[in-house]
């Protein structure tokens, strides 16, 4: 058959077309010439004549070149990917790359799906954690100018930061010039009656200045007026949006209606907006001065009052700190008995809310980052394997004139497409994952209501997925672009040189190493939790039911009525079948409540404030040690005879005994308490880990005192009543008794509700919530990492076995045993895994230091954990190598040799 291409090519030579375009035109015209030639022949023209005529047609005129020049010169459509990319604009090229990439991926759906799923895991985990970080750490608080809002504490060296005394707040507010204003608040529970079932609702006493300081406008009505924030003013109340909807059916005419809180009629003056999240649980707000406590106006009492100030424009935190500090110093000089040694500390409001959770979240960001890198390494390996298979395609392109940059760009477009697909699935995983994460961490996460997928999260996911695509696409792309076309075009070439295998090896080592780090982190957290569960809290935690309760408004009028009501509640609770002991207490260990009282040894006059020592102050009924099973060390516990008619007594714990009376028997000694006065120590009990299984040892207040409810002076009784807890030791599962307890506590008038019933084990579990949350997430991430790393090693080894079929065939033909073949393959894989594990162990020792603050009872470089991690990962690696190795032994030498 005549060669038509060469004469056509000569015609086109002067046009200097892109090589690919020229090849295309030559092919098409040659086809035409061939058709013409055959037609002439079939019409009876002799072969030589037909050839002459056809050649004349395609080459006699300069017309073809001229006409083509007119069309092609102005930039022929760029053939997809094949050309140099210099002529077409960037966007045109991008469009082509995208279309071509899409088609390529569609041609191998299995590969695309697996790669996208791996990426979806990585990107989804990152998106989920970022949406938490975004909502909690990054998003500003939902108030105008939130950076100017500062939380102000009182502080001293002994206690750190603590709540503010109301008179001090009043003085700060009056004297300070750095703030536009300050507001104060205090959480409390209210007995909401007169509307069906009595209900305990959580609320806040707030100063009239608080809502304006925050800069929030009520949804309905107004916030409190200064004259409503007075002791004798008629009670006014503001409602949360949720409470207004639930209990007032979102009545638009609710303003002016009244509700009964703590037996007080309070008129509704406003409803807060739905997104008002200052103290998430609060349902009602009352003016602070309505807090009917003598102690509110006592300078020495720090009644859980929080203070927020708004900096004046131009004022700095430093200057405000200095100013409040100097006011506090002046107050300390003026009122040494109550204020000596008390300073003030300022913290940005957001920092105060989220500062504690920050290290945990940053740890999570690091962990999911590793998961993503592992996913990338896996996908990069898949792409590498594919790039070898596609070697011929790239070689042809290179031969046709595609330059390297263009091929790299095309491949990167493909990998970015993959990661965008992964991101789409990842977003679904993230949505689901975030809700799982939040469910796993109820209450332990501040601002959790603000977590969700918003435009910032979407932007983050987009950026991460594009970066990811480039990251895992880069190595395979350069590998392909650098391939030697001649080598690749030779038929039957096995593999594509050593470069690829080295890269693969690096990826396997990297992902194994990262998996080691994650496993080590998860292992350390698991050990910490396990050790914490085994910490002796100082009492028997099983079979204890705790529940808060409110007394009937009717008994609250006089102290003897309150004391009688307590006794009746205890008596009725004791009659419930399954209740072995019942007590009332002001504090529950390991919960988040605390109450301290200051004391000094002896009965002398009160020393200045900075010489006093604080102790946890439990106000309890006599059966408390029986309920909690706290051991008595010396003397006796409080009993029914300790009442207002007998001398006041106190029981201390062994820590306080050792601290205040080292080497002596404290029983019979006198100490003096603030507010109460001199008391005699009648007994010593075991120490209880009140502050938490982990942090109790390091807390500044470790001394503990027990004081009888019956010895509480009358004037303090009504406020001591608020937030008391009924604690029961039960025979059956504690929660099974809740409804019986509710019925018995409610009393004859049915107006004493119980609320927040939980077992002691639930409380402990709650105290570990943050750690458990960290552990849970690390376990999930580590498991993902383990899975991905295992799959990665398996993939690489499988491919290696396929590649070496020929070699292994020769070996077995020459007499290598099965064991030898398996050993050969496994050794190759395990060498990579071992390098990865070694590097990972080194990195883990360095990186787990950053989580030292989250650990308990275990060092970051805990050898047992590291050994376990090594064994686990080594085992997985071994399995991932062994399966392909087994397959290698199944190779029939004859077939293997024939596949040349």
């Amino acid at each position, binding site marked *: 058959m005549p060669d038509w291409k060469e004469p056509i090519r000569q015609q086109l030579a002067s046009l200097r077309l892109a090589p690919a375009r020229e090849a295309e035109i030559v092919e098409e*015209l040659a*086809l035409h*010439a061939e058709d*013409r030639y055959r037609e002439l022949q079939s019409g009876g023209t002799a072969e030589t004549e037909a050839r002459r005529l056809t050649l004349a047609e395609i080459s006699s005129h300069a017309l*073809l070149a001229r*006409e083509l020049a007119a*069309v092609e010169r102005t930039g*022929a*459509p760029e053939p997809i990917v094949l050309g140099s990319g210099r002529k077409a604009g960037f966007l045109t090229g991008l469009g082509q790359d995208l279309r071509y990439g899409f088609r390529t991926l569609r041609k191998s759906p299995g590969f695309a799906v697996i790669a996208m799923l791996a990426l979806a895991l990585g990107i989804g985990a990152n998106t989920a954690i970022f949406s938490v970080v975004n909502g909690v750490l990054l998003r500003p608080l939902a108030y105008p100018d939130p950076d100017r809002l500062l939380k102000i504490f009182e502080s001293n060296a002994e206690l750190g930061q603590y709540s503010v005394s109301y008179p001090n707040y009043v003085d700060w507010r009056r004297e300070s010039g750095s703030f536009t204003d300050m507001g104060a608040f205090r959480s409390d529970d209210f007995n909401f009656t007169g509307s069906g079932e009595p209900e305990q609702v959580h609320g806040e006493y707030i100063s009239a200045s608080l809502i304006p300081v925050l800069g929030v406008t009520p949804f309905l009505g107004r916030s409190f007026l200064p004259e409503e924030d007075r002791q004798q003013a008629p009670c006014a109340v503001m409602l949360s949006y949720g409470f207004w909807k639930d209990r007032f059916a979102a009545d638009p005419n609710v303003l002016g209606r009244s509700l009964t809180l703590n037996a007080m009629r309070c008129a509704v003056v406003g409803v807060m907006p739905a997104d008002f999240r200052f103290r998430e649980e609060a349902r009602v707000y009352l003016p602070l001065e309505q807090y009917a406590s003598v102690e509110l106006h006592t300078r020495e009492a720090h009644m859980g009052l929080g203070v927020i100030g708004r900096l004046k424009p131009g004022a700095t935190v430093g200057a405000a700190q200095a100013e409040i500090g100097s006011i506090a110093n002046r107050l300390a000089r003026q009122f040494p008995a109550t204020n000596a040694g008390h300073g003030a500390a300022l913290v940005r409001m957001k920092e105060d809310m989220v500062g504690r959770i920050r290290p945990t979240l940053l740890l999570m960001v690091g962990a999911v980052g590793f998961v993503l890198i592992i996913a990338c390494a896996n996908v990069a390996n898949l792409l590498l394997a594919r790039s070898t298979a596609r070697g011929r395609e790239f070689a042809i392109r290179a031969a046709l004139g595609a330059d390297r940059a263009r091929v790299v760009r095309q491949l990167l477009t493909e990998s970015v497409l993959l990661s965008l697909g992964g991101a789409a699935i990842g977003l679904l995983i993230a949505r689901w994952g975030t809700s799982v994460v939040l469910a796993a961490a109820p209450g332990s996460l501040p601002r959790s209501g603000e977590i969700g997928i918003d435009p910032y999260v979407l932007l983050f996911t987009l950026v991460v997925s594009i970066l990811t695509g480039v990251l895992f696409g880069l190595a395979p792309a350069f590998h392909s672009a650098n391939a030697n076309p001649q080598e690749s075009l030779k038929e039957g070439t096995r593999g594509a040189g050593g470069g690829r295998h080295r890269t693969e090896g690096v990826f396997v080592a990297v992902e194994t190493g990262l998996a080691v780090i994650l496993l080590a982190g998860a292992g350390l957290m698991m050990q910490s939790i396990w050790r914490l569960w085994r910490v002796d809290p100082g009492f028997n935690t099983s079979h204890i039911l705790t529940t808060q309760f409110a007394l009937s408004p009717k008994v609250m009028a006089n102290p003897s009525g309150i004391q009688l009501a307590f006794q009746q509640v205890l008596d009725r609770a004791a009659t419930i079948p399954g209740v072995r002991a019942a007590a009332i207490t002001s504090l529950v260990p390991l919960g988040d409540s605390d109450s301290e009282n200051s004391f000094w040894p002896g009965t002398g006059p009160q020393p200045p404030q900075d010489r006093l020592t604080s102790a946890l102050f439990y106000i309890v009924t006599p059966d408390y040690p029986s309920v909690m099973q706290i051991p008595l060390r010396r003397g006796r516990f409080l009993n029914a005879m300790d009442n207002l008619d007998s001398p006041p007594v106190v029981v201390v714990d062994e820590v306080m005994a050792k601290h205040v009376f080292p080497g002596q028997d404290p029983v019979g000694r006198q100490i003096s308490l603030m507010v109460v006065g001199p008391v005699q120590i009648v007994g010593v009990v075991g120490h209880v880990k009140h502050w938490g299984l982990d942090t109790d040892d390091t807390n500044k207040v470790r001394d503990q005192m027990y004081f009888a409810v019956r010895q509480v002076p009358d004037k303090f009784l009504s406020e001591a009543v608020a937030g008391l807890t009924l604690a029961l030791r039960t025979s059956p599962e504690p929660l099974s008794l809740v409804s019986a307890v509710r019925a018995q506590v409610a009393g004859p008038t049915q107006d004493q509700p119980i609320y927040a019933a939980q077992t002691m084990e639930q409380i402990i579990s709650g105290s570990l919530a943050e750690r458990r949350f960290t552990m849970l997430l690390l376990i999930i991430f580590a498991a993902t990492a383990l899975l991905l790393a295992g799959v990665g090693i398996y993939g690489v080894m499988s491919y290696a076995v396929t590649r070496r079929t020929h070699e292994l065939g020769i070996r077995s033909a020459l007499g290598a045993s099965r064991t030898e073949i398996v050993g050969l393959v496994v050794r190759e894989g395990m060498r990579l895994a071992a390098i990865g594990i070694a590097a990972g162990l080194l990195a883990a020792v360095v990186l787990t230091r950053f989580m030292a603050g989250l650990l308990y009872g275990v060092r970051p470089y805990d050898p047992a954990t590291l050994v376990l991690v090594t064994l686990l990962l080594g085992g997985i690696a071994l399995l991932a190598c062994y399966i392909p190795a087994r397959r290698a032994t199944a190779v029939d030498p004859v077939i293997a040799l024939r596949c040349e």
Partner: protein
Amino acid sequence: MDHPSIDREWKKGSAELLLLSLLENLPRHGYEIGKLIEHRSQGALRFHIASLYPLLYRLEKRGWIQGRWVEKDGQRRRRYYRLTSQGRKVLATQRQGWQTFVAAISRITGVENA
């Protein structure tokens, strides 16, 4: 192109009209197009390779037709051209313009239009 007008371009443009018309219902390759023009015009019109392909490329560049390499069983791969939706609109306009042109010529020359 919105208004069918009669000028010199239309005479030249008739080549485009021919190609577009032939691709209206079926994708065809270059040689087939050339043969069809020759056959249906009973030899009166013949496209030389040097004018047929540049014209195809030009139409393709304008986005009126689209060429695609297609491999059919037992044959070598060929480049088939099909009409794009834009080409279809152009064809309708050109066809109407052509009819106007022919009608005008007929009225002037007195030849009855068959």
